[in-house]
């Protein structure tokens, strides 16, 4: 499936991709709230090409975050009539993978950025960034590459303007600074895909714009694939492609 990629500055580039890095097919998800079943996704289909920035727009409760969690291997789609739907990463169906493989997928291939930063309050800024590497490489692997990892974490933080905050704790940072730490943490293992769930949703306009610029700049330089959930049309306008979730189904713009 081919996709037309449009840069945010209006210049057109055509990137014909033979196969998507992420592919979602007929994915359904229903949540149970007590005895009540609340259907969220009704059969979503979506392809994301390598290096593409896709923004998912939708109203509150439309299932944007749920779709992001499913793509990130944090959750599994429902089975309907024995069929689960598929979520493929580089051709591998995540829904058929073991928990261990999904853990590895999240640690190695995916970077998550959340609206509320989700930093670990007891750890310093640099430790928060390094924790992803600790999880990926284990004790021995991390210790053998510790200095390189810390150096990369420091470089990322310096790049995001936090070089002077390395030893600080999250509680001592502003909202914008915390989100930059969260982005650095998501990038520490050099993932293929960045999944961002309203990364500017909790920030004022100026700070949000600054955060977005940071992400865009990094994505362009690193060729990172990015799927961003937002309900801000202005942010969506800067993406390569915008899809809308309506009634649990995708409507491409």
């Amino acid at each position: 499936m081919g996709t037309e990629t449009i840069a945010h500055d209006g210049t057109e580039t055509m990137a014909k991709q033979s196969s998507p890095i992420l592919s979602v097919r007929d994915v359904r998800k229903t949540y149970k709230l007590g005895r009540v079943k609340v259907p969220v996704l009704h059969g979503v289909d979506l392809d994301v090409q390598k290096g593409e920035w896709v923004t998912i727009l939708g109203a509150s409760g439309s299932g944007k975050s749920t779709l992001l969690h499913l793509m990130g291997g944090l959750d599994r789609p429902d089975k309907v009539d024995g069929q689960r739907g598929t979520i493929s990463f580089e051709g591998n169906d995540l829904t058929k993978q073991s928990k261990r493989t999904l853990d590895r997928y999240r640690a190695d291939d995916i970077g998550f950025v959340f609206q509320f930063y989700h930093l670990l309050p007891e750890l310093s800024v640099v430790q928060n960034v390094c924790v992803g590497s600790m999880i990926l490489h284990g004790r021995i692997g991390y210790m053998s590459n510790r200095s390189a990892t810390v150096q990369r974490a420091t470089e990322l933080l310096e790049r995001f303007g936090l070089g002077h905050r390395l030893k600080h704790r999250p509680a001592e940072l502003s909202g914008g600074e915390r989100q930059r730490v969260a982005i650095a943490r998501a990038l520490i293992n050099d993932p293929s895909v960045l999944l961002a769930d309203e990364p500017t949703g909790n920030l004022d306009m100026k700070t949000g714009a600054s955060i977005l610029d940071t992400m865009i700049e990094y994505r362009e330089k690193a060729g990172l694939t990015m799927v961003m959930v937002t309900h801000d049309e202005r942010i969506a306008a800067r993406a390569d492609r915008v899809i809308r979730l309506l009634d649990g189904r995708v409507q491409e713009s």
Partner: protein
Amino acid sequence: MYQALLTRKYLTRKIMPMLAMVAVMLSVATILVTWSVMGGFLVSLIQSGRVLVGDVAIVWPNVGFGHYDDLIEMLEQDEMIDSATPIIETFGLAQLPDGRIELIQIKGVDATSYSDVTGFADTLWWKPITEPTPKDKGREDLRLIADDLRENAGIDLEQIFQNGLTLTRPDPDDGQLDPAGVLGVEVTGLNYRTKWGGYEPQGVNRAMSDGRVMHESVFMPHDGSVGLTVLSLDSDGRPVDPKTITIPIANEFQSGLYEVDQRTIVIPLEVLQRNLRMDEAQRITLEREPFATEFDPETGILRPKMREVVGIDPARVTTVLVKKTDGVELEVMRNRVREIYAAFARKHQGDVPSSHDMHWQVKTWEDLNRTMISAVKKETGLVLFIFGIVSFTTVFLVLAIFWSMASEKTKDIGILRALGASTMGIAWLWVRYGAVIGVVGASVGTVLGYWIVSNINTIHDWIGEHTGLVIWDPQQYYFIEIPSDVDPTKALIVFIVGIMTCVLGALLPAWHSARMDPVKALRFE
């Protein structure tokens, strides 16, 4: 790796783990102190029970057996055996200075060899001492002022000590040494047990015919005596006749076992042998015709037929106590004694109990005190069991604390899962956290417990001085100080159990955290 980092951070930044640590620490310290004190109590009892019985005893009760000198010689020739001593153990009635008549165990001993084989000399209470006993802060012990007693009251404690060792007491009239006994210090009831765990001799109140009560001061080792009534048996175990003797008291002993000290007297072997008719005797013919006559070979006059001496019945004892040489295993030594007795029995076949009969009568000091030891062991086990159950609540305390912490850290778990942490990794985070809290809590608890046990009497005295609370009163308890015995093995067991308690308490919260839905965890507020 992240588990180690988070464990360290959670440990130092939260009050909850400190509470869990304190719970483990107190639990470990409590168990260690209880076990050590009960263990110390057991050790003290065992040592006290051993002091007057040597290592191995050959016992043929009541009737006894002869040729014991030969047996002792055979025993002392063996390299495993240091020394042996003959004794007679029997029961009798003692008439005490206040007129009471009590059942008493009488030990007839050979003073010199008995002191060699047992710790008898150390148990003699009345002797000069230079250092006060641990609780005698006011130096009120009479034994500390031996010189004053000798000069002002004419009581020579050094002489009394020697009297105890030799089981003699000089006659006040002619100075001749009379056979004397050593009483258990609690037998007469005339020794008032002081609050510091010593004794003060008391007088006797005697009712006069006119109704008045007269107080008579009696210090048993100086001027006291008891009447002893024993029932002698012939060599076939038949009662012959009761004999009553008055025996002066040379000293008093404290073995450390109240049961022994309250109903035992030690007297010279030959005195008891004579009165029990267990001394050497002539064996004579039994004349079946009471009116038989014979001619006196010297005078040629007819006379009632005389009984002929046909042999000698050797002196008998009921027990031979044996002391092993250093380094010999007790069981090995008992088996060796059995072998020696077997040889002895073959040598005196027909005159002494056979080795088959005597097999189970060769007993170690542990066998002799088995009832007492097993009772105290069972009590120790029971107390530990009860405290163990109480301490087991620590598991639930740790569980409650960890559950609360895991709930508080739900979002952290969601974050870690989003970053790729596995369910096992999350579970290990809490188990490891529990183990670290257990190690820290159990280490501090073990050190605290060890410190308390090592200073338990100082702590007890301090509490007593500042609050008036005296738990271990030497007037009521027979040991002056709280006994304690810190065994490194016990400490290690308690330490490991303390850690396991914490890990056990952490398992359920760990399992709960590991199974947590990461999406729900991330949305947790």
